[in-house]
């Protein structure tokens, strides 16, 4: 089962390699952490404090909002946008492999003989992808302006900062471009507006004279860059996306 882009042996192979590299990178970090032998926590884990900190400081990031709305908007959009897209891809990948094809819900989500555009579930994924993709773009635009145009005094730009921003930007742009080119195909006309951001880009591209292109080529570029980024995460600045929440909730528990 698939939606818009059929998985091939090459894609499977790359996925496995990416996951292995990602796991290896995570193990590298965990091995280093485990060399610390002192006590990590001085008090019992306070579950209430952990949950509260997770909602307030990890998801909503109110501690950043108290300092600056722009910085909060940037960070919140990148974090939630990235996590939303990662979740969408993961959900699609798992469902397309583990959900029996003859189930109604499968037909609702994926392309079938009856429908080349999927059912109501596919529309949810269309909106989902555009909402989080747009959030990621908004966050990245603010980040690029702050770091490279305004050059906020507190920022010190290293290669790893530029690498992460560049990779995420390429992922977001190729994602929307592949969608925009796909929506130029008349068979998607009836469902195009569910991909509101991608379809807007379709109209812009057509208005400036850029015609239909093979969207699958763009999906491949998008996939390759995404794979590289995923494998690179444990060694990159983006590693904090997964590590910082651990520290936030542990600190809250210790101080509770």
């Amino acid at each position, binding site marked *: 089962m698939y939606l818009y882009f059929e998985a091939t042996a090459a894609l499977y192979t790359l996925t496995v390699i990416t996951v292995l590299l990602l796991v290896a990178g995570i193990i590298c970090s965990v091995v280093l952490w*485990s060399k*610390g*032998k*002192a006590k990590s926590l001085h008090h019992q884990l306070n579950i209430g404090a952990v949950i509260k900190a997770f909602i307030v400081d990890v998801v909503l990031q109110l501690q950043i909002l108290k300092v600056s709305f722009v910085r909060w908007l940037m960070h919140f959009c990148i974090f939630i946008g990235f996590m939303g897209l990662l979740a969408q891809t993961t959900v699609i990948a798992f469902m397309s492999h583990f959900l029996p094809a003859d189930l109604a819900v499968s037909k609702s989500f994926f392309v079938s003989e009856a429908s080349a555009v999927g059912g109501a579930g596919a529309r949810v994924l269309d909106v989902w992808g555009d909402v989080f993709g747009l959030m990621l773009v908004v966050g990245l635009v603010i980040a690029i302006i702050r770091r490279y145009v305004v050059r906020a005094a*507190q920022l010190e730009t290293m290669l790893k900062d530029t690498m992460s921003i560049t990779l995420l930007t390429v992922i977001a742009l190729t994602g929307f471009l592949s969608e925009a080119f796909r929506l130029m195909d008349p068979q998607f006309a009836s469902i195009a507006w569910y991909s509101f951001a991608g379809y807007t880009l379709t109209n812009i591209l057509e208005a400036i004279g850029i015609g239909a292109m093979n969207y699958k080529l763009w999906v491949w570029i998008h996939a390759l860059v995404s794979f590289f980024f995923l494998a690179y995460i444990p060694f990159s600045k983006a590693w*904090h996306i997964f*590590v*910082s929440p651990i520290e936030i909730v542990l600190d809250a528990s210790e101080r509770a």
Partner: protein
Amino acid sequence: MENETKNVTEATENTEQTPEAAQAAPAAEGPAETAAPAEEKTTRIPIEKLSPRQLLELDACTRCGECSNWCPAYDQDQREPLNPRGRAALFKDIISRQHGVFNADSFLGKLLGKKPVTDEEMQEFAKDLYACSTCMQCHFVCPVLIDTVELWERIRECVVDAGYGPLETQKDLVLKTKNYDNPWGQPRSSRARWGKMAKKKKRIKDAPKDISKKPAEVLYFVGCTASYDNNVEEVGINSVNIFDHAGVDFGILGNKEKCCGSVLLRMGDRESFKRICTENIEQFNDLGIKTLVTSCAGCLKTIKEDYAKFGKLNFEVKHTLEYVVELIKSGRLKLTNDVNLKITYHDPCHLGRHAGVFDAPRELLSLIPGLEFVEMERNRENSRCCGAGGGLKSGYPDMQNQISQKRVAEALTTGATELVSACPFCYQGLQVGIQAMDAPINMRDITELVCMALGEGPADEAEKKE
């Protein structure tokens, strides 16, 4: 060893040596350890001394740089290794090259061009590591809430273990604390001298009783700075007068009082701290007290927060001002005299950010009649550090002076004539700035204002100078 210590006592007992003077001149002959043990340097960082969480914290830093907007040391010297972000990144780089999967000795590490950590790098790192007052501001502004101070102190421990810390000027404090149980290198036998002198000068009714001989409900832990520094002894004298006024059943340990060990912990000598902390816990617990009260923010933080990691205390720990607020509320203390002063309050880092005591001092100030209290722009969680803590004053006196001047300048903008704090160490630290600027503002401990409101009168300035 006892004889040797006695010699030191006799040699210095009749001097009026201030802690500053003691710092400048090494302690008299015969300490238990006259010099630092022969150092065996190794560039290998013993990361096992850190916790997995602390190693994770190095990865948790988002490099947002918010800490660089607030760090008092970075404010003076804007080099990246001096701000918390840079320090964390540098340490991560060092330990990755030594202990990471791709370390400099591994095949992959060599392939990736990882280089072994050099002696010069370690020296530079240690030098910058100690340019920190452990004020904890970085924790409060960090969006990830990294437990920075605990991390820096643990890294200092690693650096000490590797033979690169503390700095030469700080080693003296550590050595003196280990040998004399106070960082000023003063004899143990003169620890309670301030009380006897105050009694002689009729500044207090009676010298506080020795709690080890006559049990009491409250132990007043005077602390090294208020015990030995003539300029700060007011803190002890005022506290005693307040307790007497309220009829508190209290006592002091006198010459049996030892340093709380804060200096050792902040400098990274955790093993020595453990010894002094364990001895103190045992001594305190044996007294059967209900409350330990101290006027020193550093002692409070150490006893209340750090001791709890090494043993159980069978009493509660309070700062004098918290205790005074309770005395007033219970009606045992009545502040009746007007204190017509315009003051501003400096939150000591160890009392505020470290121990979370922000409201009690403000409540106390609001209870003093006639007082006009103006907040500084940076207060409470964002109070600007005076630079005296964490070994910064001994390691980088010029930097501390500049940091202190910034705080004093901030106090002056309020129009206050009195700069009030609740820590003898901040008192010393801010005094440095006041003197350097010749600023028209008086440094006072909060207990002094309470005494004035009790009609005990302010400390006589002439006598103070004498």
